[in-house]
């Protein structure tokens, strides 16, 4: 270190103190990750690098600076927008329009019944068909979905995990019937079941058989579909569920290790499949942290794979898709979301992603409209064509700050990875429910920071827009979609060779019993026009359906409000309520239908309990009838329905009906929280809903409103 630097540094410290009246050692900012950010970084900090290799260049070990030497200077990232809704016909139209407007890759969003292995005509999915993605029941739907989209040229990404076997099979058969052999198909199937058990909740079978299916797919594709990515190991959903970046990074890579082991246990050599493993991360608002995360992910993965004995360089390289954060986007003042998404997209690019989805500004309201989808896509087109970010590779390399962050994230994530390895790997950890709980804890902390005003969200807890704009929403008539799908199913079932279907389904069941690779059997059944639901059931016979038990955090929310006046006010009200009513206010919080978004419900539940409420937590996937029984038996004061996947207009009226059926005199209050477009408020109020709490609701204020409503209701009785 030159003396000149020391001298400069001392002078800087003095100036800093003069300007801020605070020593620079003390001026530390905190992050969700528990990483302390200093007001200035210097070349001293580079001396602390250990995971990061200062001398490495793009495309070189440990790939911190990028998987390729040339990166965007040769070819920009792929603009890959995730979309799907209603019927295959409508989604197909939408895809074709987008491809004409500059989108490069396709990414299919399936509806929740498809995800969970139910056909559209199943009673369990009445409110969900075509609502939050495209409904696919048979290979005929899949063929319509890719009509006039040549599958030998277009790379297709499919977010499918639970019903991965029938859906991948339908894709393969659709290709075949387009005259494209399966070895020419390119794209990605998500096929990442572990994070489903943690956060995404579209699992079907228990963890062990689910892991077997993952391995089957890796094995099959490594042999038969060399251009196809067999898995997309996803941290995205973890961050969206509330994980901080260290948790996201650590759990994702630990999941990856588990999949590598699963594939190797099939006798595959690591280099047979590792080049076709891909990743998927979320890019939130913490600008530099997100950049560092992508750099750290590549750095750690190369180390992990080397330890697995990978020899092929391609096996060492982490390639990733990214999506900007949906949870950072607000229902209030929604045009702000365009700005948020732009910054997040910039982070993803500076971090070196291979492909990117940018969210639409109406994210917290409904599925994107054609117009909002266009703006989202243009965000990337502008980045690629106007800003010059593609001209040089990894422009932030050598930044004292970014390199330090990359190092610190790597270290912290590595510690967690080692802990999980000690536990026996992610499958075990997931079964014990530990990662889910950690993520919920982190989510609850984030909520507390926003509700206490500690973290500013523009337009939500500060700088509110007095003139909220009204925006158009995409409306999906799910009864129409469902009717259309049912007709298609009926006609296919009427014309197919039933004997062949039954034989291929029982072959599949037997293959599961005998522990054979299931994909070929599933392809055969799908080719014979078995439905997605039938294939799923054939396996359910052997594996059963998984029901998750869930743990809850306690005290995490309350800790942020120890002396907070509003919080104490609600607590006092609760205690007063207990004195005059002989028990605490009791609220049942439920998720109905196939909607697996449980972040909000879990946070609200733990926060309400911290304020002294008795909270009954219903399981996922309840039917309105079950909810009514549960509510009445426990004589709760109120039911809080958390609904995010657009089933509310079917499920809420069903619930009100069931309540009346079970108890004609029921005076139970029902309120609704989650993603509800304003256009639907009147509809819900007409159903006698007492209050609606949309995205961004302050939980303390919500709790106060709930207890006031309950008290008023009791007085009326």
């Amino acid at each position, binding site marked *: 270190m030159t003396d000149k630097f020391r001298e400069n540094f001392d002078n800087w410290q003095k100036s800093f103190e003069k300007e801020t009246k605070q020593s620079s050692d003390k001026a530390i900012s905190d992050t969700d990750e528990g990483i302390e950010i200093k007001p200035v970084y210097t070349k001293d900090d580079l001396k602390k690098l250990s995971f990061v290799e200062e001398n490495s260049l793009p495309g070189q070990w440990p790939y911190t600076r990028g998987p390729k030497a040339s990166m965007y200077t040769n070819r920009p990232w792929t603009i890959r927008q995730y979309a799907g809704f209603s019927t295959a016909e409508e989604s197909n139209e939408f895809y074709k329009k987008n491809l004409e407007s500059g989108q490069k890759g396709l990414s299919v969003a399936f509806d929740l019944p498809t995800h969970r292995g139910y056909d559209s005509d199943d009673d369990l999915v009445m409110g969900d068909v075509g609502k939050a993605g495209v409904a696919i029941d048979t290979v005929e739907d899949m063929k319509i979905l890719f009509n006039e989209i040549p599958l030998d040229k277009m790379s297709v990404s499919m977010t499918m995990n639970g019903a991965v076997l029938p859906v991948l099979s339908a894709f393969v058969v659709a290709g075949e019937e387009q005259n494209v052999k399966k070895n020419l198909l390119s794209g990605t199937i998500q096929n990442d079941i572990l994070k489903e058990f943690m956060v995404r909740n579209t699992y079907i079978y228990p963890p062990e058989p689910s892991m077997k299916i993952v391995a089957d797919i890796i094995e099959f594709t490594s042999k038969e579909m060399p251009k196809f990515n067999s898995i997309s190991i996803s941290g995205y959903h973890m961050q969206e569920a509330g994980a901080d970046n260290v948790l996201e990074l650590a759990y994702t890579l630990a999941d990856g290790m588990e999949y590598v082991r699963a594939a190797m246990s099939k006798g595959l050599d690591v280099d047979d499949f590792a080049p076709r493993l891909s990743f998927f991360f979320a890019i939130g608002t913490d600008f530099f942290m997100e950049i560092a995360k992508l750099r750290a992910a590549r750095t750690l993965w190369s180390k992990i794979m080397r330890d697995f004995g990978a020899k092929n360089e391609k096996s060492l390289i982490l390639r990733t898709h990214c999506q900007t954060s949906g949870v950072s986007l607000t229902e209030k003042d929604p045009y702000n979301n365009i700005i948020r998404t732009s910054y997040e997209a910039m982070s993803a690019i500076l971090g070196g992603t291979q492909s990117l989805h940018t969210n639409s500004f109406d994210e917290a309201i409904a599925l994107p409209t054609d117009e909002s989808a266009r703006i989202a896509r243009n965000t990337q087109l502008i980045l690629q064509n106007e800003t010059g970010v593609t001209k040089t590779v990894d422009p932030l390399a050598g930044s004292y700050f970014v390199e330090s962050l990359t190092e610190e994230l790597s270290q912290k994530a590595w510690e967690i990875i080692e802990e999980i390895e000690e536990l026996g790997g992610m499958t075990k950890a997931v079964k014990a429910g530990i990662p889910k709980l950690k993520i919920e804890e982190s989510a609850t902390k984030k909520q507390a920071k926003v509700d206490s005003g500690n973290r500013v969200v523009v337009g939500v807890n500060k700088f509110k827009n007095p003139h909220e704009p009204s925006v158009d929403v995409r409306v999906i008539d799910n009864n129409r979609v469902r009717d259309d799908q049912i007709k298609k199913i009926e006609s296919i079932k009427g014309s197919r060779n039933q004997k062949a279907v039954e034989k291929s389904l029982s072959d599949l069941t037997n293959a599961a019993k005998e522990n054979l690779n299931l994909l070929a059997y599933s392809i055969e059944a799908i080719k014979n026009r078995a439905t997605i639901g039938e294939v799923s059931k054939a396996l359910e016979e052997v594996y059963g359906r998984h*029901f*998750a*038990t*869930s*743990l*809850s955090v*306690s*005290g995490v929310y*309350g800790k942020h409000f120890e002396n907070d006046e509003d919080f104490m006010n609600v607590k006092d009200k*609760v*205690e007063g309520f*207990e004195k*005059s*009513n*002989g*028990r*605490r206010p009791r609220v049942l919080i439920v998720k109905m239908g196939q909607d697996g978004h449980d972040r909000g419900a879990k946070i609200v*539940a*733990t926060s*309400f*309990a*911290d*304020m*002294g*409420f*008795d*909270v*009954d*937590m*219903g*399981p996922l996937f309840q*039917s309105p*009838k*079950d909810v009514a*029984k*549960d509510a*009445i*038996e*426990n*004589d709760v004061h109120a039911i809080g329905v958390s609904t995010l996947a657009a089933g509310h207009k079917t499920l809420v009226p069903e619930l009100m009906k069931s309540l009346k059926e*079970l*108890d004609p*005199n*029921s005076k139970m209050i029902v309120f609704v929280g989650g993603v509800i477009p304003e256009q639907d408020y009147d509809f819900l109020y007409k159903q006698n809903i007492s209050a609606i709490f949309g995205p961004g609701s302050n939980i303390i204020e919500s709790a106060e409103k709930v207890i006031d409503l309950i008290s008023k209701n009791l007085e009326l009785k």
Partner: protein
Amino acid sequence: MKLAEKIINGERAAIAKAITLVESSKPDDRIESRKLISQLIDNPGKSIRVGFSGPPGVGKSTFIESFGSYLVGKELKLGILAIDPSSQITGGSILGDKTRMIEISKNPNTFIRSTPSRGSLGGISNGTREASIILDAAGYDYIFIETVGVGQSEVVASNLVDIFSLIVGPGSGDELQGIKKGITEYADIFIVNKNDGNLKIEASKTAADYKSAISYYKKNEVSSSKEVLLVSAIEQTGMDEVINTIQEIVLQNKKNNSFESKRCEQLKFWLSEEIKNIMQLDIQRKIDKAGSIGHFSDRIINGDISMYDAIETITDKLQSE
């Protein structure tokens, strides 16, 4: 129609409201509650009450889901009272038992009620006994009571039921040493859960440990026959043995009259508990009213008065009131 009639008619909402009433801490409600219970006691049903206790996480709820599905499959009506430990710090609670009882909670022949324990002794909340009287009158064949078993709680829990079973997990045999006497005294059935997958060996070993411990204390008077059963709640194995054992014990106890005499003993126990509770509340109210504890503790700390003198002064004062 009066509440009691509706309950006897098996009306779900009425049963639920009645349980709220007997759990209520409001003085008016307590009076109503006593009236209701005296009416119901005159119309006893035929329920067998079974308690399931055990350490947190051994699978009590999962077992009840599994065993319960088995029973409702035999057209039996099942009432379940799950006592959920509530947070001591916040006072509130998250009642998550139902996320483990998904299948049976859908069945029209079940009634499942969760109750926060409110930190009361033995994880049994106020009103659990009364709630089981309500379910009995409503015509449920079996009433299951799930409680978290920690140390002393077995005494209270076992006094609520005809058959008391302790659920343990594989590997908990080591803990036997310390609690041997207590549990063998109060439990009729030991259920070793999680007898599946690679836990099987450990589960069998645990069962063997319990068996030998029991033979050691066999001479016990409170409950005569004791069984150790291996089950897997997840794989739904061992359910036949559980129901057979329960039915056998009931039959045997009815034959030798211990079924009724046990219920008599329990009544005695609850009488004294109730009286104790009422007195305790009364005393607490007096202590609070006197408000002198704070004053005396200050004086003790200051050295103005010895602790024992302070105690004597306070109790004298309370007793003279």
